[in-house]
């Protein structure tokens, strides 16, 4: 039981990660794929923040007092960077989707493949 409580957050993170991966593999719609990517990214953020948490700790902002316990600030910094980079990735991906829709009139992967097979030069 102790094991389950201690590891529960990791397991949920893995379930979320796999949900994102499943969307990316099994859904043909390109916007849906990017949503899956976002799901995957956020689950990774969660994994890092979970690793930084210390029981009975407080946010890593220095306060006066004896024996204050702080959570680990390093994962927070890494994830701050990752969130911003993740949004930059999403923006480029969505711009590509808009261009694909302009050029082909569809954002479904199988239809795109069919069009591509008909006119390989396009």
């Amino acid at each position, binding site marked *: 039981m102790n*094991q389950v*409580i*201690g*590891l*529960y*957050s*990791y*397991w*949920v993170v*893995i379930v*979320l990660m796999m*949900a*994102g*991966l*499943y969307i990316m*593999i*099994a*859904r*043909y*719609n390109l*916007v*849906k794929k*990017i*949503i*899956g990517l976002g*799901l995957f990214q*956020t689950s990774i*953020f969660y994994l890092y*923040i979970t*690793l930084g*948490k*210390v*029981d009975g*700790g407080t*946010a*890593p*902002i*220095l*306060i006066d007092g004896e024996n204050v316990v702080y*959570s*680990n*600030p390093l994962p*927070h*910094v*890494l994830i*701050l*960077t990752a*969130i*911003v980079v993740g*949004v*930059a*990735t999403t*923006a*480029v991906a969505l*711009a590509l989707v808009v*261009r694909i*829709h302009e050029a082909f009139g569809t*954002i*479904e992967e*199988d239809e795109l493949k069919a069009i591509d097979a008909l006119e390989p030069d396009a």
Partner: protein
Amino acid sequence: METLVANVLLTFLVFIAIGIIVLRDLLGAVILLGVYSLIAAGAFVVMDAVDVAFTEAAVGSGISTILFLGCLSFTQHKQKPRGHDSLAALIFVVITGGLLIYGTLDMPHYGRADSAAQTHPELAVRFLEQSASEVGPPNIVTSVLASYRGYDTLGETLVVFAAGIAVLSLLGLKRTRREDEAPEHAPGDTPSADVDERR
């Protein structure tokens, strides 16, 4: 108690993720993704990561939702129904997830103060003890972000700049020209077609 709150919020996230998988309406899925980010931000506050929570709420739930909505306004709202066989994908995902869960069995438990991440003398311990005298600000995350890992932040800025250039070169200049030439292909016509479909 804190752990309980965090775990309940995490469980919400799983339900939202299932909703995103099932939903065919892309607009609904995008809004669910925004809700997902917002709940994740709440959970980050419970886990003491207040700076991350700010950023996730503003950037993850705000800006990226706006980007998705902008993209949807240029494309279509519906994911086409597909009866394709996703059993192989399901099996692959379940096997990968099972292996990862097997890998967590010897990970440090949630909230343990004696795990390697918490006790490394050159990282967290040094930041907590020395940053007030070495850098100054009481918020240790700020000190680490701007000073100890300043090159990371510089690299992040470069990535965002590169992404901005990429988006502009993909969309920006070309779009205005195209709208001048053929206003009937303006972004508004796809959503109205979508409305027609719903009738």
